[in-house]
């Protein structure tokens, strides 16, 4: 799963810590999600999208695994 968190954060000049505070998780969570090392739950994905005032599919893009 890919995401545009880094781009969306940069557009808003938000640090990872600031986004983390907005969605009530740790900065480590945001860092891992942003770098693609951790997949958030649906609930957290929606919360992150909501923080960016975007749709969840505009923040996260799911790519099917290669067969």
């Amino acid at each position, binding site marked *: 799963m890919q995401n545009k968190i880094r781009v969306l954060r940069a557009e808003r000049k938000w640090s990872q810590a600031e986004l983390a505070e907005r*969605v*009530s998780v*740790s900065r480590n*969570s945001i860092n891992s*999600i942003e770098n693609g090392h951790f997949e958030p739950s649906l609930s*957290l994905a929606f919360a992150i999208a909501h923080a960016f005032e975007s749709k969840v599919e505009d923040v996260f893009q799911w790519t099917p695994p290669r067969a």
Partner: protein
Amino acid sequence: MPSPRKAGTPLQMALFAVMILAPISVLIAIPWLKQQPDNFVFLYSGVAAAITVVAAFANSILFDRQLDEWQRTNARFSAQWGWAAGAGLMALLLSLPIFRDWMVSVVADLADATNPDDTLAILAFTFGFGGVVLVQGLCTTLLSIGWTYWKSRPARDQ
């Protein structure tokens, strides 16, 4: 989606203190406990162990509620593999004569035994360790079954 972990609350700090103080009280009381009847020693250490377990259990519940999903995944990963690695390492250590000798000498010191039975001490420790691993396995299985039933229950609003 819980908030990120904050500093411990006063209740958590108090529970942590209880968790530490109970076993320390047993260690401090060893010279006095040596003069007491066995039944009293077992009762005293049993009560201390129960207090520690209850405080640790309550603290872990409070701690878990403060974790976000990344931290919870971290805790699950480290607990799952940490227990397995720890149990394996302990089994490995028990196979080393130097470790067994050290263990017997510590037990002999604590029990004031001048000529301890090495085999008895090692067997007692090994059975204790094996018991912990077995009971942990049993509890893990029971909790897994309970979790499966809990998460498979029908929806309330349908």
